[in-house]
């Protein structure tokens, strides 16, 4: 199976991973999908590889939805303190990220707590406002996920079609062989 996957590599650009993503996890997921196929053809393997990529895109966009929300929340917090000389949006984003993941350092926690106090907001209020502000982009992320699902449906139907045709051809081959045998048997019988 691996040889077949490798044989396709020069023809098709392989799905690329993002920095920090596990290559072995990607391969394990691909092998899991390939194991569902009986005697996969190169075309089937190419289609399953695309299907696996769609699954990864769904994962990425799902993570992005949460990131969009965090970014929007950080933006609300950055607007709170107009009086500070210089505020670093990235600093707020990373502090908020660790604050929401409950692994913030003492300084970051104090920084976010102070901003929340100044804004007179709780974390859930902030989340609700962030959701409202990022609604348009969250919808876009949902549409990207939906697109991947639709692509997967197309790929599944294509795989089924290739699989069905190969099974049909195999069955026809068997029937033809059977017919040939029968014809031979008829020929050898004395008239």
């Amino acid at each position, binding site marked *: 199976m691996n040889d077949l996957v490798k044989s396709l590599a020069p023809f098709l650009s392989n799905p690329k991973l*993002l920095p920090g993503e596990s290559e072995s996890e990607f391969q394990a997921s691909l092998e899991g999908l390939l194991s569902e196929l009986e005697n996969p053809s*190169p*075309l089937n393997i190419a289609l399953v590889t695309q299907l696996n990529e769609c699954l990864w895109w769904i994962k990425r966009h799902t993570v992005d939805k949460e990131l969009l929300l965090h970014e929007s929340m950080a933006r609300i917090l950055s607007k709170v303190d107009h009086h500070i000389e210089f505020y670093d949006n990235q600093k707020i984003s990373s502090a908020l990220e660790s604050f929401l993941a409950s692994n913030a350092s003492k300084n970051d926690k104090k920084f976010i707590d102070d901003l929340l106090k100044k804004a007179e907001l709780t974390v859930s209020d902030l989340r609700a406002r962030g959701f409202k502000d990022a609604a348009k982009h969250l919808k876009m*992320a949902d549409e*990207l996920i939906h697109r991947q699902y639709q692509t997967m449906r197309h790929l599944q139907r294509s795989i089924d079609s290739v699989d069905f045709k190969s099974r049909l051809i195999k069955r026809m081959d068997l029937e033809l062989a059977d017919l040939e045998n029968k014809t031979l048997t008829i020929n050898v019988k004395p008239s």
Partner: protein
Amino acid sequence: MLSRLKTLTNRLNAQKSTGPNTSHGKRISSRNSIKHGLNVKVDFESSDTYTSLKSLLVKQGCSPFEAADIATSLLNYRRVMDAYYESYTQPEEVDEFNWNMHLPGVHRALEEMSKDSEVTASEMLSVLRVFARSQRDERRRGGPVFRRTVDCHKLIRYQRNAISRLSKAIRSE
């Protein structure tokens, strides 16, 4: 249903729509085709990859015509997905300086600078407005995750067309 008069009016108004007018609009639209390059027609058939893929499909039992259609569609789909990846990984960079610029501070600095010069208050205000506008534009585009979501969203229709074409080529086999 639109009346005849309304249709004619729409057509006449459409004559006035001759693309972007401002230099900013022209700059943006001039980059339309080079952002992802998916509007450019690619001749897959002259590539070695196409020939190899086609012969692999023929060996698998496809007719040469079907194999050609599938190979082209598959290469086209990969091209779209590669552009999708590029859009995702390389969104337009956030101008941190612009984003984080403290406008009251800039105002104060401009006031200091204008003390010894002949710059009028209204001129200073218009400079400040330029800074404010560029900051507003920068922030409106959002951070990196916002930008890559918008960029990828623009490629949805290309992905839809590519997968439909591929699926059609395989199922009509």
